[in-house]
């Protein structure tokens, strides 16, 4: 008789060993105001529109605060403030500008726990991620770009730089404060001022950041934060005094922006959607690769533009790999974002959960085999079980379209060229993953994958020094690193 593999433990054992007691992060010290106005010219103002929207906790659907809806007039006022401030900000000695950013970095570090908790309450991401990934990176981003402020002449050999002017920045709900940092830090370092619009479901950390700006003595008007939904964003894009648009979000909206500013000469950088392929070669360290695949697709509930949403696994190891993967998925803890044990928190909003469910139904209708590791998820709040689709073909909707949730598709391949053909058969080109113990294979596959970011034997890593961004329909421009300065300067 064949001995039972030690790598596939009895599932009941898991029940015995991996039952964690709840370890919720305290919210006692969190003080949110009942309502937040628009942060314009260094002060909070009520919106001209008189309109407010609710910011909900997606894990329990409770109201966290009311947030202003900026009208066209409000947008105009913010742009005016930024325009006025820009002239002074640009003339300020570069080192002093840098020092303002250093201050912001420090204050963010000091208030990092508070920001993490609010981020998890407002967005639904596990506290483990907001505490260990998002907020530390926010501080790091400001710290990194602070240092560039007085060193720009070394970034662009042979050329002088000038700031672009007032930048309109629109960010998504998946990494609220981190995306704010990605946008504001390089813009300010290069001498620009900004009007930033957070996503409508996740404005709170940006508004707490506005408080931090005041504490850091950021000159009024240099950073303006206007909240609202799509109409606010559109008003910002159309405003004639905006010199540059920086947008992170869906490819559809990115295309709309590119078209909306056609012929205006406005600069733009776009970080758009993705459908990243994660390629597992047969000579990969499989256990590490399983962890990598889990991190690639289930990090932040899969609300990651660069998620490794398409698993491509070499046929010879696909069976054992899938077995390991399913086993690992069954051990993920889905639930309260504030619980320190939680791996997968709440889906950001009711509408996003609905969207994910629609995709899951399409996957089933198109004949894919579904595996969900969790039969039940919390009934209050917006939750989704980690989901796997096998028996999919390249043309399946769930393989082609970005789902932006914890849904992974699995395809197999026999040869490297088949893997690359499948990996690149998409209009997207943001991220890619390669798993193999053979260095030469990494470089070959890495050069052939059409993507702006390639993670080899790792996935979903970010750093302020490391340029990030997409090719093809995944976007234009880079954020992070020296290359992340380009969108915010004009060369002379």
């Amino acid at each position, binding site marked *: 008789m064949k001995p039972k593999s030690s790598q596939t433990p009895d599932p009941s054992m898991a029940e015995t060993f991996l039952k964690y007691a709840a370890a919720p992060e305290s919210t006692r010290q969190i003080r949110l105001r009942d309502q937040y106005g628009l942060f314009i010219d260094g002060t909070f103002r009520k919106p001209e529109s008189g309109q407010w929207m609710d910011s909900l906790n997606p894990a329990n659907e409770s109201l966290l605060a009311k947030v202003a809806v900026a009208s066209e007039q409000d947008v105009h006022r913010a742009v005016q403030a930024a325009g006025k401030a820009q002239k002074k900000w640009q003339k300020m000695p570069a080192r002093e500008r840098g020092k303002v950013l250093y201050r912001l970095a420090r204050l963010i570090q000091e208030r990092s726990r508070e920001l993490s908790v609010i981020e998890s309450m407002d967005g639904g991401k596990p506290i483990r991620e907001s505490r260990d990934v998002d907020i530390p990176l926010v501080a790091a981003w400001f710290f990194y770009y602070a240092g560039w402020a007085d060193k720009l002449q070394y970034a662009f050999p*042979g050329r002088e730089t000038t700031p672009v002017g007032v930048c309109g920045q629109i960010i998504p709900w998946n990494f609220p404060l981190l995306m704010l940092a990605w946008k504001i830090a390089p813009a300010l370092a290069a001498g620009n001022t900004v009007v930033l619009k957070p996503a409508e479901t996740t404005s709170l950390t940006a508004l707490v950041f506005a408080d931090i700006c005041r504490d850091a003595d950021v000159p009024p008007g240099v950073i303006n934060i206007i909240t609202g939904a799509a109409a606010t964003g559109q008003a910002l894009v159309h405003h004639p005094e905006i010199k540059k648009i920086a947008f992170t979000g869906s490819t559809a909206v*990115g295309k709309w922006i590119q078209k909306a*500013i056609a*012929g205006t000469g406005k600069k733009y950088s776009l970080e758009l959607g993705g459908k990243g392929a994660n390629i597992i070669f047969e000579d990969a360290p499989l256990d590490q690769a399983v962890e990598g695949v889990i991190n690639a697709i289930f990090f932040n509930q899969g609300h990651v533009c660069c998620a490794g949403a398409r698993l491509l696994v070499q046929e010879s190891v696909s069976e054992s790999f899938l077995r390991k993967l399913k086993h690992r998925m069954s051990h993920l803890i889905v639930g309260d974002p504030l619980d320190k044990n939680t791996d997968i928190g709440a889906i950001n909003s009711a509408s996003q959960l609905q969207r994910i469910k629609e995709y899951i139904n399409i996957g089933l209708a198109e004949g894919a085999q579904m595996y969900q590791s969790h039969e039940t998820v919390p009934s209050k709040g917006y939750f989704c079980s980690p989901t796997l689709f096998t028996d999919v073909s390249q043309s399946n909707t769930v393989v082609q379209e970005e789902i932006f949730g914890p849904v992974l598709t699995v395809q197999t391949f026999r040869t490297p060229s088949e893997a690359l053909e499948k990996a690149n058969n998409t209009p997207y080109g943001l991220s890619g993953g390669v798993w193999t113990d053979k260095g030469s294979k990494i470089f070959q596959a890495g*050069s052939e994958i059409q993507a702006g970011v390639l993670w080899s034997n790792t996935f979903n*890593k970010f750093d302020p020094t490391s340029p990030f961004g997409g090719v093809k329909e995944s976007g234009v421009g880079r954020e992070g*690193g020296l290359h992340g300065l380009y969108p915010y300067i004009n060369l002379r």
Partner: protein
Amino acid sequence: MNKRLNVRKTYKNFIGGAFVRSESGHVYGVTGLSIPPDMNTAQEKANPILAQACRSTRKDIREAVVHARKAQNGWASKTAYLRGQIIYRIAEMLEDRKANFTEELTWAGISKRAAAKQVETSIDRLVYYAGWTDKLSQVFGSVNPVATPHFNFSTPEPLGVVAIFCADESPLLSAVTAVAAICTGGNSAVLIPSQAYPLSALSFGEVLHSSDVPPGVVNILSGIHNEIMDPLASHMDVNGICNWTDHPASQALLDEHAARNIKRITHQSWGDGTSDEFESPYLMMQFQEIKTTWHPVGY
């Protein structure tokens, strides 16, 4: 005595390494401001049509994009050293035909001296960019000191297929600069020469043909800009657009088409093409993407 009749050249498109006529079968007359020496009859003097250029169509554009796509990967995969040598070889071939190109340019109404200068600048520009192939990633790439145990580096990579719209002013230099700055970095191109003065750019195809440039890397199609901007700029397999024409209306049109598939698009005022902007690695970088690679470090 019988005067010998000059044998005139038929100007054709250059697609996939071959000289072909437009599938439309149509041409448009290219008029010159001065008169070529063999145009002596009264009729010719009154209406100096220098040549008939192909009036390219949507189908020609599609054909060219297919060839450009097919050629791009192989071209980008060649070593930087080899690409540098090939670009340098174009310079050699152009130098060899200097007199020929100078004369052709004078037909467009350019003084002999200015024409010679334009050809020389074109040659030197090729030499300039040839030297960048194996330096671009050293100057514009980076090793990034990330705060986790990873080795992390970023390198420029070619954008893919680029559509180029050349200026009327100094038409040869415009075409040569575009090829040198854009294709040197591993891109393939569909190049639309000046509508009014396309001849020197079309002849440049012959130089490319004899310079070891793989077929399809550069495709040159003449035509009426209003007719071909649309299909080329909206083509879903084109990754970038380089626009050096100075029509504000076409700028908005190109931008809108670019938005269909997030094409990279740059508009630059060409002037006479002698400004530093056109002899610069930053021009090359407009048609490069930065790829970042991560790998863990550890035993």
